[in-house]
């Protein structure tokens, strides 16, 4: 049952994807970012990938496309997962938001935005979620020093 769903995903996304393959048992689809929203809409509406698991980013400073935005989806009908990846440049780090499709995207995109600085076009609410107002920078980028604290309250002398 799961294998058929994955075969259909391969078939439907073969034209849009730059790379489709199995990686440690999971189907991984690499797309250019313009193809992301139509592909995800197709996954949700036609292939029953109704549970949006996760969106995160990986920072590869030495590559041309610095950020790799990674999505995971799960189908509660076929019991399989699929990983969808896209990559963006540092100067133009923005992708389309999935809040129109999945309510779960709201918080997850907020976190990815504040940690990596990736802009999710269409998400109305990109406030800080895990960090606080006044925090400058994007901590999970490789050039942010781990121990660089930005205290809100003055320390005692």
């Amino acid at each position, binding site marked *: 049952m799961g294998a058929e769903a994955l075969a259909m995903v391969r078939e439907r996304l073969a034209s849009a994807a730059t790379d489709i393959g199995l990686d440690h048992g999971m189907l991984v689809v690499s797309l250019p970012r313009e193809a992301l929203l139509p592909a995800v809409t197709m996954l949700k509406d036609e292939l029953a990938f109704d549970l949006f698991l996760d969106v995160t980013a990986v920072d590869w400073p030495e590559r041309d496309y610095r950020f790799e935005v990674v999505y995971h989806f799960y189908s509660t009908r076929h019991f399989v997962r699929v990983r969808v990846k896209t990559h963006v440049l540092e100067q133009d780090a923005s992708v389309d938001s999935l809040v129109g499709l999945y309510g779960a995207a709201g918080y997850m995109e907020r976190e990815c935005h504040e940690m990596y600085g990736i802009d999710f076009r269409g998400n109305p609410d990109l406030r800080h979620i895990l960090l606080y107002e006044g925090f400058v920078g994007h*901590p999970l980028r490789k050039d*942010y020093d*781990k*121990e660089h604290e930005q*205290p*809100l*309250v003055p*320390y*005692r002398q």
Partner: protein
Amino acid sequence: MTSKIIPIRADGTAAHQKTAEFEYITTRKDALVGWARKFSIFPYPFVTACCGMEFMSVSSTIYDTDRFGAALPRFSPRQADLMMVVGTISHKQAPVLLRVWEQMCEPKWVMAFGVCATSGGFYNNYAVLQGIDKILPVDIYIPGCPPRPETVIDGIMQLQDKIARSRHPIVNEVY
């Protein structure tokens, strides 16, 4: 604004000029007040993280803080006198912690429960306050990640000793 209460003796001299009899009475008064305060601690459990599990355990039947009079949590800072900072304090939480501490009335004590409250624990990064003593004065530190309930009880008893032997200037001095 603090109000000065300076008792005056019958001959017109101010009572805080030290005499042996007066000091004897005030030290006995301090011992009595210290005894009363140490056995009627009203904690404000500022619980954030994993140490909260051990806090729940130490307040429960097997290891009981009610034996020390310290069981009833008062969730309003106006009514509490011991703030137990249980768990990691992040920089986002620090203003909240400071605001709650400021709202407590004297006499107040602060207990740093667990290593994250003591020194930031093993989280040495951008998000964690490296010890609450950077922003508040702390009276007792309880190490452990999380500390066993026996360690917490040891800490409470040491705090009780500290309260018992400290001065409680409620009558005889500027407070």
